[in-house]
C-alpha cells in the first residue's frame, strides 16, 4: 500500500508542526489512525465521533435529495410548467429529472458555501489553537443548506456561516463546548440580520424574487407566491394543501424541512442506530401536541373568534402542527444535538417537552415570523444546563440524605 506508507511518512514529518491538525484532518478522513490505547482500557469500541456524525449525515441525505426535487417542483409548478401531484408520494410529476436539475443547481452552491466556509474556519482555528479538526461541522454543514430558503443570496449565507461558526462555536472552544446549536445560530443570524428578506413570502420558492423584479420592470407575467403554509395560516387564509401534501412534503418551505415523512424515517434511523435521543424526540412531539391541543380547546371554547389574528394558527388541528413548518426537522435533527441539549436522561424529557410546547406557542403568537421551532430550541439550549443542574442536584441531595441518616 503505497498511499498508506506515504501518508504515514507525511504524518510523521508534520508531527508537532503548526500544519499537523490540517494534515491530520485530511489523513484521518482516509485512514483511521494507527494510535493504540495507552494507559486505560486496552481495547476500544468501534465507534468514533466521525462515525457518529456520519450516521447523522446519512439520516439527512433523503431530506436533501427530496429538497432538490421539491425545489424544482415548486418552481415548475409556480411558473405553470407542470401540474400538482396527484398520485401520492411516488407521483411522476414530482420525481422528474427536470425538477431535480433545477433543485440540484440551486442547492449545490449552498452546500459548497456551507462546507467550504465552515470547514475553512474550522481548519483555521485548529491550526491557530493547535487542536485537531473536529467533526461537529460535518453535520452542521449539512444542516445549514437544509434550513435556509432556497433563494437565499450566497453572500448572505457566507456571512451567516462565518458568524455562526466563530461566535456560535469556536469562541466557546469548539465542538463539544458550545452552548447554542451552531446551525440554528446561523439561521437565527439570517433571521435577525436580514428580516425583510427572511420573513418575506418570496424566498421560499425558487424564481419568485426574480419574477417580482421582472414585474416591477414592466413584465406582464403573473407573480409567484412563495408563501409557506405557516405564512398563509398566520394571515387567516384558507390552505390550498392537503394533509398528505404536508406529510409527504410537496409544500414550499426551507429546503430540507418539508417532508415530514422522510424526516420521520430519518428520526427512526437515528433512534435505531442509538445516535439520536428518542427521549428528546418523543417528548418534543408530546410537548407540541399538548400546546396545540390547548390552543384547539381555546378555540372550541369560543374564547377567540375568527376575527382574531391568532385564529388561523390556533384553530389548526393540533397534530397538523407536526406536519407543517420546521417542526419535525427541528425535533429530529436540531433538538437532539447532544452538545447543546440537556445531558441527563431526565433532563432530556423536560428539555424536549418544553421545546415542543414553546415552539407551538411562539408559532401562534409571533406576529413577525410564524415559526417557533428555531427560537424554542435556541431558548432551551440556553436553559439546558439549568435543567441538568437541577436533575443532578437530585442525585446529590439523595447522597447527602443518605450520609445524614447514617450519622444520625
Amino acid at each position, binding site marked *: 500500500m503505497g498511499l498508506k506508507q506515504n501518508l504515514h511518512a507525511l504524518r510523521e514529518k508534520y508531527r508537532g508542526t503548526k500544519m499537523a491538525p490540517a494534515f491530520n484532518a485530511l489523513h484521518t478522513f482516509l485512514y483511521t489512525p494507527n494510535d493504540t490505547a495507552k494507559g486505560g482500557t*486496552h481495547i476500544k469500541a468501534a465507534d468514533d465521533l466521525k462515525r457518529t456524525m456520519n450516521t447523522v449525515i446519512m439520516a439527512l441525505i433523503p431530506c436533501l435529495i427530496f429538497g432538490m426535487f421539491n425545489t424544482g417542483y415548486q418552481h415548475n409548478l409556480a411558473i405553470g410548467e407542470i401540474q400538482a401531484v396527484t398520485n401520492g408520494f411516488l407521483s411522476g410529476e414530482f420525481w422528474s429529472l427536470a425538477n431535480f436539475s433545477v433543485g440540484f443547481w440551486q442547492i449545490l452552491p449552498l452546500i459548497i458555501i456551507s462546507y467550504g466556509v465552515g470547514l475553512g474556519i474550522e481548519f483555521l482555528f485548529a491550526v491557530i489553537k493547535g487542536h485537531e479538526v473536529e467533526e461537529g461541522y460535518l453535520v452542521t454543514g449539512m444542516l445549514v443548506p437544509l434550513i435556509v430558503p432556497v433563494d437565499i443570496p450566497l453572500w448572505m449565507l457566507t456571512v451567516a456561516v462565518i458568524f455562526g461558526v466563530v461566535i456560535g462555536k469556536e469562541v466557546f472552544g469548539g465542538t*463539544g463546548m458550545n452552548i447554542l446549536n451552531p446551525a440554528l445560530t446561523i439561521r437565527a443570524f439570517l433571521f435577525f440580520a436580514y428580516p425583510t428578506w427572511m420573513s418575506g413570502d418570496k424566498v421560499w420558492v425558487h424564481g419568485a424574487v426574480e419574477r417580482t423584479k421582472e414585474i416591477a420592470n414592466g413584465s406582464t407575467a403573473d407573480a409567484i407566491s412563495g408563501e409557506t403554509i405557516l405564512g398563509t395560516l398566520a394571515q387567516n387564509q384558507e390552505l390550498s394543501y392537503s394533509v398528505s401534501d404536508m406529510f409527504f412534503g410537496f409544500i414550499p418551505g426551507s429546503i430540507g424541512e418539508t417532508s415530514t415523512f422522510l424526516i420521520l424515517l430519518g428520526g427512526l434511523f437515528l433512534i435505531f442506530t442509538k445516535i439520536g435521543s428518542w427521549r428528546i424526540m418523543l417528548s418534543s412531539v408530546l410537548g407540541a401536541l399538548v400546546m396545540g391541543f390547548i390552543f384547539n380547546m381555546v378555540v372550541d371554547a369560543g374564547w377567540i373568534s375568527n376575527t382574531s389574528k391568532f385564529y388561523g394558527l390556533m384553530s389548526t388541528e393540533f397534530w397538523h402542527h407536526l406536519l407543517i413548518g420546521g417542526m419535525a426537522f427541528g425535533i429530529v435533527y436540531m433538538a437532539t444535538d447532544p452538545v447543546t441539549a440537556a*445531558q441527563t436522561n431526565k433532563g432530556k424529557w423536560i428539555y424536549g417537552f418544553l421545546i415542543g410546547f414553546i415552539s407551538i406557542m411562539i408559532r401562534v403568537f409571533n406576529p413577525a415570523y410564524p415559526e417557533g421551532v428555531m427560537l424554542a430550541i435556541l431558548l432551551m439550549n440556553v436553559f439546558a444546563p439549568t435543567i441538568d443542574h437541577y436533575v443532578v442536584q437530585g442525585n446529590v441531595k439523595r447522597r447527602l440524605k443518605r450520609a445524614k441518616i447514617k450519622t444520625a
Partner: protein
Amino acid sequence: MSKDIRIKKGLDIKLVGEAEKAVENAVVSNFYSIRPEDFHSIIPKLVAKEGTRVKAGETLFYNKDNEAMKFVSPVSGEITEVQRGPRRRIDALKITADKVQEHVDHGKFDLGADAEKLRAHLLATGCWAFIKQRPYDVVAKADSTPKGIFISGYASAPLSADLDFTLKGKEAELQAAITALSKFAKVHVSVGKDSDSPLAKMQNIELYKVSGPHPSGNVGTLINKVSPVNKGETVWTVNAQDLVIIGELLLTGKFNAERVIALSGSAVKKPRYFRTLIGSEISTMVYDNGVERGANNRFISGNVLSGKQVGPDGFLDYYSNVVTVIPEGDDYDFFGWNKPIFDKVSNSRALTFSWLTPNKKYDLNTNMNGEHRNFVLTGKYEEVFPLDIYPLQILKSCLYKDLDEMEALGMYEVAPEDFALTEFICVSKQPHQQIIREGLDLMIKEIG
C-alpha cells in the same frame, strides 16, 4: 441466606482466548520484580538494599507515612537491582530468586485474638497490602475502621480468571481470612448467580448472588448496591484470590505468594491457567504454547479493561490474577470511520453490527478506532454504568478540578475500574480511568 443483585446496565465484551480450565505449574521464574507503583500513593522507604538477601515474606520496604505497614518479598533471594526513575523515585526492586526457597515464619495466628492484634499482625506480615480502601482506591490506611469489607467472587470483566475455578480447594484459607477480617466489620461477598464458588459456603459473611452484564462482578458495583460510601466512611475491599494468601499466613505463618492465574487473550495459542508467584516474569508463561516470539502483541498484567501494559519481559503485578495478550492494533484502517464494521464490538448500531451477533466472540486489538475528542455524546455512558452516579458529570468535575462538586457527585464511592466500560465505549476516546485516578489523587492531596 443470600440476596440477589441484578444489574441491567452494562456490557459483556466477549473476546476470543478464554483460558481453558487446566492448571499448569509455571516455569519457576529466575527474577522477580516488585513495583511500588502497584501500591498507589504509598511512598516506599527501603529496608533492603542492593545485595541484601531476603527470605520470602521478609520486608522489602515500608510505608513512609507509617513504619508499621510493611511490604514483603514474594520469594527468597538476593536483591540485585533497585531501579529508580526521575527524582530517585523507586520504580522496581528486582530480586534474583534462590534455587531453594526459604520462608520467614510469622507464626500461626490465634483466630480468637482481637481486631487490634490482627491489625498489627497483618501490617507486620505484609498482608495489609492486600486490603484496599474506598474512598480513593488505595491501600487501606493502617488506622482506618471500615463500615464493611467487600469481596467480589465473580469476575465479570472480559477474559478474567474464573474465581470459582482458581479458588477451588482453598476453602480453609478463605474461611480463615474471612473469619479474621470479620473482626473488623461485616464481610460482604458476591458470587455469580449459578456459581459453585467456594466463597458461597463461607461462614460469617453476607452473601450476594449477582447476575447481569459486566460490571456486575466489580466490587464497586457491589458496594454501590449494598452500602455506598458516604463522606467520612471507609470500606475495605480485598481481591478474592488474595484472601488465600492472607488465610495461609494466618493458618501457617508462611507468606505464600502463590496464585493461580489465567493466561488469556486471542494472541495466545493455548490459553490456560498457571500456578505462579506474585512478581514472576511473564516470559515464564507466555511462550510455551503461548504467543509467537517477536510478534506484535500487547502484554497486559491484568484484564483488558483495567490491566497494566507490560512488555514481554514484564512481571506479574501485585494484585492481578490474569495475564492477557492481545494483538497490537498499530495499523491504519482505510475509511475505518464510515465502512460497515462486523469484527469489532460496539454498543451503537451506526453501521456497526455487533448487535446482530450477541454471542459472537471477538478478536479485538489495541487500536483506538478513532481520535481523542472533547466530550460530545451524552446518555451513552449511563447505558453501561450501573452505579447511582452521573458518569459524564463526575468526569467533567474531575477535569475542572472542582473538589466540592466531585465530592457531591460521589467521588468517595468510585475507583478507576468502575469507569472502564464507559472508557471502552467512549466515542470521544477520553481516558476515563486516568481522569478518575487523577481526580482521586487530587482529593487525597487536598482533603486526605
